[in-house]
């Protein structure tokens, strides 16, 4: 019997890096995040890679990803998007903090400049 052709939206990519922690991983050059213990859905709207790209990645022995069936694609997509939204939130928070730091540094520098000029004016 020929192998069943996976349906778009019903398969996902799973990380096969040996001993990888059960955390999201990224592979430079490959869009998306991948876990060793759960598949990232592919081939659907908003998924990180198309089905064709996913098949290429899974066929490449140099890439630690395998194509697996996803039992509940809708739930997997929801879970994946929850993660990416949270990750974007963290990045936004970090960016805002960094911006705040710059503003604080500028304020500190201004205060320091005021402090050093005041005695001279006296």
């Amino acid at each position: 019997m020929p192998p069943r052709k996976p349906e778009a939206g019903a398969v996902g990519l799973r990380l096969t890096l040996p001993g990888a922690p059960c955390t999201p991983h990224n592979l430079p050059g490959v869009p998306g995040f991948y876990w060793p213990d759960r598949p990232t859905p592919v081939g659907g709207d908003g998924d990180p890679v198309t089905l064709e790209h996913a098949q290429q990645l899974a066929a490449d022995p140099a890439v630690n990803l395998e194509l697996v069936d996803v039992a509940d694609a809708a739930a997997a997509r929801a879970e994946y998007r929850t993660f990416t939204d949270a990750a974007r939130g963290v990045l936004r928070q970090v960016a805002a903090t960094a911006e705040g730091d710059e503003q604080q540094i500028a304020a500190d520098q201004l205060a320091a400049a005021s402090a050093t000029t005041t005695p001279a004016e006296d």
Partner: protein
Amino acid sequence: MPLGYAILRRETTNAPGTETVTPTYASKLLYLPALEVNPDLGPAPLDRGDEIRNIDEPVSVVPEVYNPSLSVRSRMYPDSLGQMLAVMLGAPTTTAGNGVITDPGSTVIPVGVTRHVWTAPFGPTGIVPGCGDWRLAYRDQGTFFQLKGWAPSSLTITNPESGGAQFTAQGPANHMARISDPGLTPSYEALTVLPFMRRNLTLSWLSGSAATEDFTLTITNPLEQTRSVGSGSAYPDLMEKAEGPITVTGSIPKRQLDPDDYDALLNATGFAATVTYTSPVIIASGYPYKLFVQLTNAQYVAGEIDALQNRRRHGASFEFRGTTTGAAGHVVITLCNATTSYA
């Protein structure tokens, strides 16, 4: 973006990798997000300039022996540190969290978290120390190396005020070869997993001790590397444990000179100490990444107090060592992370 990667694997056989020996490896494979990996071939060519040849010019050298080594510096990511400890100290005792087992802080470890424990006396049994294997890809330069039989002689954890807590490890290797492009696509933990930082560090230390200005921890692994007669290799073929056990030491500069610290140095007072890192990043069920280093009997073994000057603050710095009063397990390192196994 510049391209390149470094892969660290733990060698599991009792015969470390050499030019001719390919060891077996633990299945765990780590692309280390290092700050720096510095391999050194250590060539020592034969220089025949000491021969009487009536030549007043430098004589050409010829290859004779190589003494490879490697040093690495990385931020203290929970998985990276675990792999480095596994290479140096051997595979830990690993237990999956189940809502029953606890960490050294008596917090229950939930499902999804794994506890890895290294207990002194460390290291694989036998004469061979823990060894690892590196593959280094200078991808933009099209140059690739493999170092086999690398044994860390020291692992130092530092806690700079900024830049994240870091570990550095260094040690000799039995072989360094230029290899063909492994052609791999690296896989890294996402940036959402943070390294431990100085602000994550708490110390349970000598009672009455002064405020701590800085803290470093060093694991020293005595090694001896030799070439056996008849090996036929320009590289070392034996990596052995040297005299002395694996030792945990460190330094702890204090903001103020305190009589409790000085008296502990004077009397070689033994005290229980715990170094704890608690990451803000949650692994599962509200449980974050954690690292504990417990010393049952820490002792100050050296110290230096600031010279008395016309200053408001006079500090002191102490060197400490983890020792045993007879019972085994004088140092216990516990790492709680999301890695299910370092085997």
